[in-house]
């Protein structure tokens, strides 16, 4: 019997329908004002893709910041445990998961069964989150994806030493106005690099072990992923759909546990 997992995040809501290690249906939507309505909609879309109905499911597990608002299932699990289970399903050798989202970042150390060993993270500081990159993209007047690619062309990271997103903006502005001006791609490499330094600085407190997986909305940023590899000095695996990993883990938990 298949099962489903839903991740109700602050910015996006994700749903996955899983059976026997195969994803049958999935969906990502912008989170609605009404968390429950949004979650149901995401679930229905994923079910439609799978050609199934809610009654066909063994169980549903919900996770994410908005999980407390969901009433149509009793099973709620922490984001950490779902991230760990999801990453472990995709990459059984994973031992460190970096989840870098729009407004928060988390690092989780995982054991061979996908259980959480240690974790660290924050969601009250904009540095080291997608918001930082978005404000930088505005400053550099480029779309995020374009800025990400430009980062790969940079030769040296321009220095962005501030850990605070707001002070870092000022540093970037001085690079732009410098005489002679710092090369644009180097500034961009510096921006992505400083973000990686923050995340890895956080992670070092609990230790980084290979294999490492990068997930969350910012994982698809190629510039950031490259800078993360430089900082961690190990290969980083980015799954094809990094935003769905927690929902996948939730679905796996629903499948494996007695609901």
């Amino acid at each position, binding site marked *: 019997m298949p099962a489903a997992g839903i991740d109700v995040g602050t910015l996006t809501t994700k749903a996955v329908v899983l059976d026997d290690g195969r994803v049958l249906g999935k969906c990502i939507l912008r989170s609605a004002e009404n968390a429950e309505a949004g979650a149901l909609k995401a679930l229905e879309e994923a079910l439609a893709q799978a050609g199934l109905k809610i009654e066909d499911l063994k169980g549903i597990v919900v996770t994410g910041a908005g999980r407390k608002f969901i009433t149509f299932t009793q099973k709620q699990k922490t984001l950490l445990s779902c991230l760990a289970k999801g990453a472990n399903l995709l990459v059984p050798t994973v031992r460190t998961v970096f989840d870098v989202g729009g407004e928060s970042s988390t690092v989780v150390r995982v054991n061979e069964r996908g259980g959480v060993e240690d974790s660290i993270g924050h969601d*009250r*500081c*904009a540095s080291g989150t997608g*918001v*930082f990159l978005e404000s930088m993209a505005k400053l550099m007047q480029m779309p995020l994806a374009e800025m990400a690619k430009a980062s790969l062309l940079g030769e040296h990271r321009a220095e962005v030493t*501030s*850990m605070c*997103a*707001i002070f870092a903006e000022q540093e970037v502005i*001085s690079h732009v106005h410098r005489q002679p001006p710092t090369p644009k791609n180097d500034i961009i490499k510096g921006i992505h690099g400083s973000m990686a330094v923050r995340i890895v600085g956080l992670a070092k407190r609990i230790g980084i072990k290979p294999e490492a997986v990068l997930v969350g909305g910012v994982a698809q940023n190629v510039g950031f992923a490259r800078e993360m590899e430089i900082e961690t000095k190990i290969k980083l695996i980015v799954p094809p759909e990094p935003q769905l990993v927690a929902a996948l883990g939730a679905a796996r938990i629903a499948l494996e546990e007695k609901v």
Partner: protein
Amino acid sequence: MPYFAGIDIGSRGAKGCIIEDGKIVSYFIGDTGPESVKTAWYTFEGTAKPVGLEVKDMTYVVATGYGRVLVPFANENISEISCHAKGAQYCLPSVRTILDMGGQDCKAINVNEKGVVTKFIMNDKCAGGTGRFLEVIASVLGLTIEQIGPVALTSTEKFPFNTVCAVFAKSEALTLLKKGTPKADILAGLHDAIATRCHNLLKRVNIEKDFTITGGISKNTGMVAKMKEKLGLEPVLMEPDPQIAGALGAAVFARERWLAKQGQPPQ
């Protein structure tokens, strides 16, 4: 009589102060420009020229602040914590607790009756709880930094801000503004959030009277009122201008250092 000068190059504001015979002869408050050496010179000239003085008239010069190592005419550099404490206590001999909110940092300092620092803590990474936070909010609300204090005081209902981060507070403020929340109420909530951060910082040192506030923030009547509310202590502000605490302290140190080099104890 010998003249002594103090130059305080902050991340945003550059201040200068000249003393003679223990009294302030002149002071200046300007903006820190992108080039430190130029800033140092125009700060000094802004202080000295109006009273007909030049660098060669100075017996000893001490530099402090963020940009202190790049003041070419300084005889010595001393940390801003020590200079702030020295300057504040020089004007207010009874002061024991100082809160300084600069453009990019926030400091809490305990000073004893001799002007010596006994404890300090500096929040120096995060824009939340600094002058920068207020600038960000002021621009979002379309007000000047001078207006936000008085406007905050007119609030009837403050909105609690859960965040300490200026980036998140900015988007929260924008959302509230779109919903039609009065600016005064938004500002009151934000001032409260910053005051809480400052209070938490102060709790890590000793909160003893007399309490003073230095730096640009001392001119924000809304913040001063909030701090009084949180601490239960009336802040006494130094004359002539709380923004020159660092520069004045540096000048006083200049005098002490010079006297020590002459083999005389400081009076």
